């Protein structure tokens, strides 16, 4: 006589996760595992015994301090391994991609909203900077900021109607937006140079021109650390919890007062702005810009970075960006078989580490640690 038997609950992961399919349900009565205890994190008793005082070790274990420190060290030490302009170029490209992936990860990994059109925002940012600096002589830094504002506004206007959509429909809508942007960039040749692209002026700030690889490396490395810091800040904050709640259970988030639409729009805009800034800088770095930057393929590449590295993991996004940027450089010796092998690697990683490299390895590590 139960209205719905508790034996057939619709687990939240299937009913409200934005993208779901039959079978990907997590049984709510999952087998009880021993309570995990993080080493070095003191526990408090029940109630008002006050919060734990955190020692230095505990603080270093937090991603916002420890993880960020590791990232900063890697960025600082990496040049010792970079032997030439090509190595620097790959490192810089990794940095650019990683920043976009970190932003996109906030949207896809944490908020659970897919976008197959983010290269479009990157492209708008890039072209805005390229055109205003090269054709109209704006200072590059000003262009970059204005471009970010313009892209932010564009994303804001688009986000509201689009983010009502769920799952594959959202994928389609974002794909459509990206394609429309890319078509415009291709067609408005007087302004953009069309499919052949346009030459872009160098990046100068107050008279200093970013010319040498290490100039760019320092800039991008610094921005990467800042982007990771901002991302980690967001995740572990009221905003971040609201975002993750939207992913976990949209209706639950709503009934405790989270304006889910507002947060979806907010993070869509943030991730678009990340992409825009990278677009602007990238155009100056390459000193050439073509509509391929805004293409569907680039959008898909960015999503692959996020998913491959690990959704809902800031450092996963970095690892994903690094892997996807560097891997083709390692596979060139395969010549005609390059694409075949690249696709196989992608498939195998996703089949065997479906949550992405970093979270899957982390889970493995965790299980190992408990034994």
């Amino acid at each position, binding site marked *: 006589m139960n209205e719905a038997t508790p034996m057939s609950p619709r687990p939240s992961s299937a009913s409200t996760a934005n993208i779901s399919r039959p079978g*990907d349900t997590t049984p709510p009565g999952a087998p009880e595992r021993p309570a995990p205890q993080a080493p070095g994190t003191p526990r408090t008793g029940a109630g008002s015994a006050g919060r734990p005082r955190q020692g230095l070790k505990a603080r270093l274990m937090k991603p916002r301090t420890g993880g960020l420190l590791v990232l900063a060290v890697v960025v600082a030490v990496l040049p010792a391994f970079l032997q030439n302009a090509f190595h620097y170029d790959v490192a810089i490209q990794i940095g650019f991609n990683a920043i976009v992936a970190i932003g996109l990860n906030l949207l896809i990994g944490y908020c659970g909203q897919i976008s197959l059109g983010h290269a479009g925002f990157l492209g708008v940012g890039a072209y805005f900077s390229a055109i205003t600096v090269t054709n109209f002589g704006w200072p590059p830094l000003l262009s970059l900021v204005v471009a970010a504002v313009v892209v932010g506004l564009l994303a804001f206007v688009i986000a509201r*109607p689009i983010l009502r959509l769920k799952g594959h429909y959202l994928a389609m809508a974002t794909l459509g937006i990206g394609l429309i942007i890319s078509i415009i960039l291709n067609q408005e040749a007087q302004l953009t140079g069309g499919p052949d692209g346009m030459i872009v002026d160098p990046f100068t700030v107050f008279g200093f021109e970013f010319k040498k690889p290490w100039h760019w490396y320092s800039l991008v490395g610094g921005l990467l650390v800042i982007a990771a810091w901002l991302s980690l800040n967001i995740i572990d904050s009221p905003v971040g919890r609201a975002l993750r709640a939207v992913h976990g259970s949209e209706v639950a988030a709503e009934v405790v007062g989270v304006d889910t639409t507002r947060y979806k729009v907010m993070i869509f805009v943030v991730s678009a702005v990340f992409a825009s800034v990278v677009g602007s800088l990238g155009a100056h770095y390459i000193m050439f810009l073509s509509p391929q930057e805004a293409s569907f393929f680039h959008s898909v590449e960015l999503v*692959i970075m996020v998913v491959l590295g690990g959704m809902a993991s800031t450092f996963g996004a970095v690892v994903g960006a690094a892997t996807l940027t560097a891997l083709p450089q390692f596979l060139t010796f395969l010549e005609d078989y390059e694409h075949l092998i690249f696709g196989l690697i*992608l498939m195998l990683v996703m089949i065997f580490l479906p949550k992405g490299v970093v979270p899957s390895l982390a889970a493995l590590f965790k299980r190992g640690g408990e034994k």
Partner: protein
Amino acid sequence: MLGEFIQYLFSGLTSGAIYALVGLGFALIYNASHVINFAQGEFVMLGGMGTVFLAAAGVPLPLAVVVAIIGTACVGFALEKLAVEQTKNASVVTLIIITIGASIVLRGAAQVLFDKQFHTLPAFSGDEPINVLGATITSQTLWVLGITALIVVVLQWFFNRTLLGKAILATSVNPLAAKLVGINVSFVLLLSFGMSAALGAIAGVLITPITSTNFEVGIMLGLKGFSAAILGGLGNPFGAVIGGLILGIVEAFGAGYISSEYKDAMAFIIILLALFFMPSGLFGKKGTERV
């Protein structure tokens, strides 16, 4: 001008029928597994390229067509068995990436196995255009439309009248319940991938005389097919067909009456508008969220 209007309509139907056939493949797999298979365009490519190369190797054309379709179906089986089935609990985004990976693999394999050139097949019943009310249409377009219609009818019959078809529908609605009543769910999934691949291959054979084919032709066709399936509404094969036809017709009228530069953009704007008012596509299931 009537002739002009009808010509645009024919033009739209030609492209639209192609999109519809590819969209149908998306719908079929989605129906059974709720997976969007981004390698669907590659099935179309394999059907066309396979036929071309078998024929070039001296296999009689009709036999080449059959072998290419069966071969592509086997690729579909393999994709389900070796990739999709191995990922029971993967999120849908992960599955999307896996099927994108599969499409890269298939393109890479085709590039090595076949070549990078464009190829074509002779039209089934000659190249003579048919005049209708001052407009012309090629007989191959009629083949595409006719076979698409036939496939829709056969699919309707299959899903509504046969036990196996009903089993697929049941699996789509509730895989657990389907399993409990004795349906071999993994067989159903395997079958749907095979059917969808075969359908893609048929599309490939049908459209090669119109568009030609090469190892990368699947990318754009996949994209359009996906758009068609979404516009029509997921889970409804009939919707995918209508979605494809609408897409083709919007492009043709856009190119004819407004601007050929922005005809693709217009098609996507129509899709966005449609989704804005109908978030589950034109014929998709609108469910109230149960909490």
